[in-house]
């Protein structure tokens, strides 16, 4: 197989559109909650003095928005993410939501502190906008099915698409790259000595969580955590291996992020949800549907009544 074909085969596997649609529901839900309930405080940054505004490269050509326009962006984001979640005018909604979500967080990161927790969500919104994310679990797909029934056409139940495969593949690479580039930074700047250095201890002191302050005086605990962190980050490629290796890695990574939340107060839920790109979500949805179906159709059994 020549390199171009190999490239196309890697990036564009035809996968069920339902898989991508389920991924859309998860990521749009997260983004909606994130914008509506978590990150509303960012709108206040439109009032922060220019002295602190050091825009990320992306925002440098753009003017800073005032409070009124920022509020409008916030409202539009909530509405478009809600539409993306239910799958109504999905593509248009995602094409509006993706750049606005990017702008929203880029604005926050333009005040001197860049975080990485939302990179996967930004990437997800963009690839969902390009790929056929409205093909299932959406009002758009219901409307399309109704139209086809009226015309007498037969709709494909389990349609597959290369762009759906591409979207999920990009997410896989984003997730794996995040870890491996973090390991690269540590190894380049500090080498393996990072494990026995006190970078992690310093971060714990700065963050000042109760769990972090409890652990920080135990060198062995800090060094063990540092070693496990580096191991986990450097072996992120294992997520491309199927079966138990991947499942074990994902379980460890989820535990790792639970640990970073407790010890360092760093939330990577967006990254954790992006692990779902590695899995056959449509199978999970079917199982969940079957389970609910059984629960709903099971008749309640009359209990034996024992008289004393």
């Amino acid at each position, binding site marked *: 197989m020549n390199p171009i074909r190999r*490239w*196309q085969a890697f*990036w*564009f*596997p*035809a996968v*069920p*559109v339902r898989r991508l649609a389920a991924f859309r529901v998860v990521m749009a839900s997260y983004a909606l909650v994130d914008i509506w309930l978590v990150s509303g405080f960012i709108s*206040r*940054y439109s*009032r*922060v*003095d220019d*002295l*602190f505004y050091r825009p*990320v*490269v*992306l925002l440098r050509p753009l003017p800073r928005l005032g409070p009124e326009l920022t509020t409008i962006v916030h409202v539009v984001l909530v509405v478009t993410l809600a539409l993306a979640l239910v799958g109504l005018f999905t593509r248009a909604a995602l094409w509006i939501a993706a750049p606005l979500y*990017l702008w929203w967080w*880029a604005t926050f*990161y333009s*005040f*001197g*502190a*860049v975080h*990485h927790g*939302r990179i996967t969500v930004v990437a997800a919104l963009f690839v969902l906008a*390009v790929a056929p994310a409205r093909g299932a679990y959406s009002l758009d797909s219901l409307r399309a099915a109704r139209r086809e029934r009226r015309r007498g056409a037969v709709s*494909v139940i*389990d349609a*597959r698409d*290369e*762009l759906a495969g*591409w979207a999920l593949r*990009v997410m896989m*690479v984003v997730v794996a*790259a*995040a870890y491996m*580039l*973090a390991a*690269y*930074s*540590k190894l*380049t*700047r*500090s*080498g393996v*000595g990072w494990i026995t*250095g*006190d*970078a992690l*201890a*310093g971060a714990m*002191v700065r963050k000042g969580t109760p769990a972090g302050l409890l652990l*920080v*005086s135990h060198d062995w605990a800090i060094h063990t955590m540092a070693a496990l962190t580096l191991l986990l980050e450097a072996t992120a490629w294992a997520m491309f291996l*199927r079966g138990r290796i*991947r499942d074990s890695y994902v379980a460890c990574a989820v535990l790792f992020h639970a640990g970073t939340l407790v010890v360092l107060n760093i939330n990577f839920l967006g990254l954790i949800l992006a692990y779902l790109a*590695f*899995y056959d979500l449509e199978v999970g949805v079917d199982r969940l549907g079957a389970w609910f179906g059984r629960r709903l159709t099971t008749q309640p059994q009359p209990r034996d009544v024992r008289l004393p």
Partner: protein
Amino acid sequence: MSLQRSPVLRPGSSASPTARRPPTSRWRSSVIFAVSLATVVWLVAQLAAGLLMVVSTWPVAGFPMFSETRSTVFERRLAVRTRSGNEVAVRPADFGLDELQLLNYQRAIVHDAGMVRHEPAERLGMLAAVWSQAHPEDPAVSMTMTHVEYREGPGSRPSSPKVFRWTAP
């Protein structure tokens, strides 16, 4: 459950994986080509940002967090003296910032390890001006930043503090 495990079928094809593929439209081929090209560009940019550990290019950025060998433990105190003579501790919320954002502004004045960067008094003066805008009834006449370092790690004896001061002309 994975991408590879599923048989590769084209959209709209019959259920058999051996079924002949329908011809791809020219529009569809163009879209795939454009997406493929965009993927190459993104991949190169992501790799470059990752290897150079640049974060200002977010969301295509490196991941250098906590990668330094030795993290200095330090304490910084920021205070203003107002026109009425009050000594007031300055908090990130006074500027509408969070703790890390204000800390990173202060890092432009003095490095965590104590190295002094250029024009500390001017930078403090700008900070004091913003603080005064929010407190016009009693503006700042001087601002002081105190930097204390704990070289032997948390809980150890502090180094002698470095004090930076700006006073209104």
